[in-house]
């Protein structure tokens, strides 16, 4: 008798233990998933935030060496300043940081502490301040990527010299400059404004932000009306027949087609048959519109379906035609849902990369595009392009690009949530 009771208790304990274990597995699984969200974000943010500021080195430029009287600059046009030969003058200005060094090799190393566009930067300074240039002006010049990374602590200094990109003598110069207080940080505005570059310290996301904006604009212009009209037709007007069924099956299938197949469509039909220009936001936008259409159509249909029939019937009862009932009464009520779906579709399109690779939006574009017909990159493609580069500077730039991309996505999703909250009607 006691044996059987003990058996029962044992078995019950076993069952309760396994219940506990199961619960722990479940919590473990969920924590695992949650942890990866955190890891992903922390990883990106910790390596990306430093791209938003940059290292500059303060240099005194003796403009008097360039010209007898600095007031003469104010009479020069931009063209004249462009024609001034400033290369050796700029170099000499940098040498003045360390007047003692004589050897050519060391001088070269010193110059390499700065980005290769130091001459251009001095020229730009001259152009924008030409009316009041003093004999000597203090200019903040962009540091080279190596210096920037060392200064931010992203680059190990204790490697052997031949494994390092930055040399011992450069580190000596750099430390001396730091001691003299000439090295400082400033907000990395050029990163947000400029196009791509082969030099990490000069590369910016401006071009790809504009490219993404153009692409999304094309997607919005194409897919918003088409998606909503299609949804209205299918939900309100379509007769129940084979054609309608076929369209519906098609839409559901398209929603499941891998994005890269849309890239093949763009390459095969839009580029090669219709001959639209490669690498442009226009083509990218068309391809992404086709991809986002199902999302918009499905969301809009769902919100049309949620409009109670009494609204339609009320309109019809006072003599509206079917079209009037739908356009004046049903669609306005369903609009928040359609907008939400569109924004979510646009967010998808904004993050999409694979189809853009196939239609050539991976070109290396230095200029910020002016129209949707200029070759350009987009934010996610920029991430792909930079992640293939070896320089340390691109890692932080890539992460920063991702941060901006995620920022845009979060904003769009927030907007969608807000629209839903604000305008949602419960019937």
């Amino acid at each position: 008798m006691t044996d059987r009771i003990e058996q029962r208790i044992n078995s019950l304990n076993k069952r309760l233990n396994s219940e506990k274990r199961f619960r722990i597995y479940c919590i473990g699984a969920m924590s695992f998933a949650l942890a990866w969200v955190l890891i992903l974000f922390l990883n990106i943010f910790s390596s990306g935030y430093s791209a938003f500021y940059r290292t500059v080195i303060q240099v005194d430029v003796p403009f008097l060496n360039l010209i007898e009287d600095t007031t003469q600059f104010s009479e020069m046009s931009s063209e004249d300043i462009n024609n001034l030969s400033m290369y050796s003058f700029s170099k000499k200005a940098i040498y003045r940081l360390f007047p003692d060094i004589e050897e050519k090799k060391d001088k070269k190393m010193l110059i390499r502490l700065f980005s290769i566009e130091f001459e251009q930067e001095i020229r730009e300074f001259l152009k924008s301040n030409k009316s009041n240039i003093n004999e000597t002006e203090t200019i903040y010049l962009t540091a080279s990527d190596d210096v920037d990374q060392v200064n931010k602590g992203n680059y190990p200094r204790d490697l052997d010299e031949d494994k390092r990109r930055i040399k011992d003598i450069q580190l000596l110069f750099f430390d001396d400059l730091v001691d003299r207080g000439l090295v400082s940080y400033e907000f990395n505005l050029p990163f947000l404004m400029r196009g791509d570059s082969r030099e990490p310290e000069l590369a910016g996301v401006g071009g790809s932000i504009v490219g993404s904006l153009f692409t999304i604009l094309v997607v919005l212009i194409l897919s918003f009306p088409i998606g909503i009209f299609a949804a209205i037709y299918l939900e309100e007007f379509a007769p129940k027949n084979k054609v309608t069924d076929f369209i519906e099956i098609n839409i559901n299938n398209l929603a499941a087609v891998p994005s890269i197949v849309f890239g093949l469509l763009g390459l095969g039909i839009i580029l090669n048959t219709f001959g639209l220009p490669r690498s442009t936001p226009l083509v990218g936008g068309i391809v992404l519109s086709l991809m986002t259409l199902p999302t918009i159509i499905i969301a809009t249909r769902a919100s049309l379906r949620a409009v109670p029939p009494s609204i339609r019937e009320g309109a019809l009862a006072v003599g509206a035609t079917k079209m009037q009932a739908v356009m004046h009464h049903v669609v306005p009520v369903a609009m928040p849902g359609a907008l939400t779906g569109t924004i979510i579709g646009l967010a998808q399109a904004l993050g999409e990369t694979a189809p853009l690779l196939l239609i050539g939006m991976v070109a290396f574009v230095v200029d910020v595009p002016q129209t949707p017909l200029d070759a350009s990159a987009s934010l996610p493609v920029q991430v792909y392009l930079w992640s293939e580069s070896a320089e340390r500077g691109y890692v932080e730039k890539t992460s920063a690009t991702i941060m901006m991309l995620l920022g845009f996505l979060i904003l769009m999703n927030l907007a969608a949530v807000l629209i839903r909250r604000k305008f949602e009607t419960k019937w």
Partner: protein
Amino acid sequence: MGFILISLIILIGITSYFLGNLRAKNLRTSNQKNLKSLSHYYGYYVALWAVVPALLILLMITSFKSFFIEQYVLSDFIALGSYTETELSLLFTQIENTAMGIKLFDENTILIDGAVNKLNYINKTSENLTYVTVLGLSGLLVLYSIFNINHKLNSRKIVEKFLLVLYFTCSLVAIMTTVGIIFSLLYETLRFFSQVPITDFLFGLNWSPQRVFVREAGDLDTRDLANAFGAVPLFAGTFLIALIAMCVSVPVGLLTAIYMSEYASPKVRDWAKPIIEILAGIPTVVYGFFAALTVAPLVRDIGQGAGLTVSSESALAAGFVMGIMIIPFISSLSDDVIKSVPQSLREGSYAMGATKRETIVKVLLPAALPGIVGSFLLAVSRAIGETMIVVMAAGLNAKLTANPLDAATTITTQIVVILIGDQEFDSPKTQSAFALGLTLFVVTLALNFIALQVVKKYTERYD
């Protein structure tokens, strides 16, 4: 110029709306007879006549213009008869460049100069002609339609008919997209299979399309060409990576779904569910970056610590990250399915003295199985079609391997590798990418179809 022209057309459209509206109101007051529709419908009627045909003509002109311009400019060269089609199009690009002031070549100067002049002339003329045609047409139709307004015309019906046709056309875009996909994939694929036997593609064990260039340069036999397009290593790599992804996402996703639907308090649920769904909203290129820069080195270090040789582009890293990406697909869908199992089944099980785990494992999961399997299948199709993670983190060279620590390549990776950058369109190498795309399209479509069927067929109805 397109932008200005379109703005002008829209401006005409807006003006003509008011004109039509005004005309209808005038008719009503002067004529005593009532019109058949409300005044603003006459406005829409005129505006439609003003805008729609003009836009259609503009579309036609822009799509055919370049062809005619090319014919006209090259007419002297075509008359010579010594140029092939590709040479002609190359020539045209050169002429275009010369017209823009980029001097590229100095042979045939007279003919070229003539062509450049012709190009400049035709560009100017065609632009003017387009303006005249489009705006003239628009204006004429506005006049026509305004004078067409009378008390017999029911403009509301016409406008509504137009809207209906417009809506229907929009809903056809989905079909046209599908047709476009199938057409473009099939066309290139058939051309590919005319050079490479389909059996070689489906069952060949060697994938090295780069070799085709070697063949063209050297003189190897065609057997070698066939040998370069065996897609089995790609299928195997895709399968391997998808399998790893499923090994991560199935247990995690399913257990998460169970926790959400059965254990979690509403408060935890409200927080945790959207956070996990963030994983589905993150662009795949971000996962690719994460896999290539963080996870792959980590996997390699751990593996080397354990004395294993791990490739820096291991299938494990790509598959693992892909698995994380897929978690929300499985957890959300399964969560919905498990929640939809009727409460009576749960309570019946509890009443028999079953613990929660026993209820879940023995009652709820079997009841929800079709939906869960459906969500797995959808996740697999997602994993197979995923591109950026594998492009950035998996290998680029095809190698037949079942070792997850080795580099493996996938269908999508090879499509990107072949088609990225410049490609010439008549080589079997380029066409092979479309064959791969068609395979991918068919497989994912089949998976989705099966998933839907499973859900439909085996879902028990509890009412």
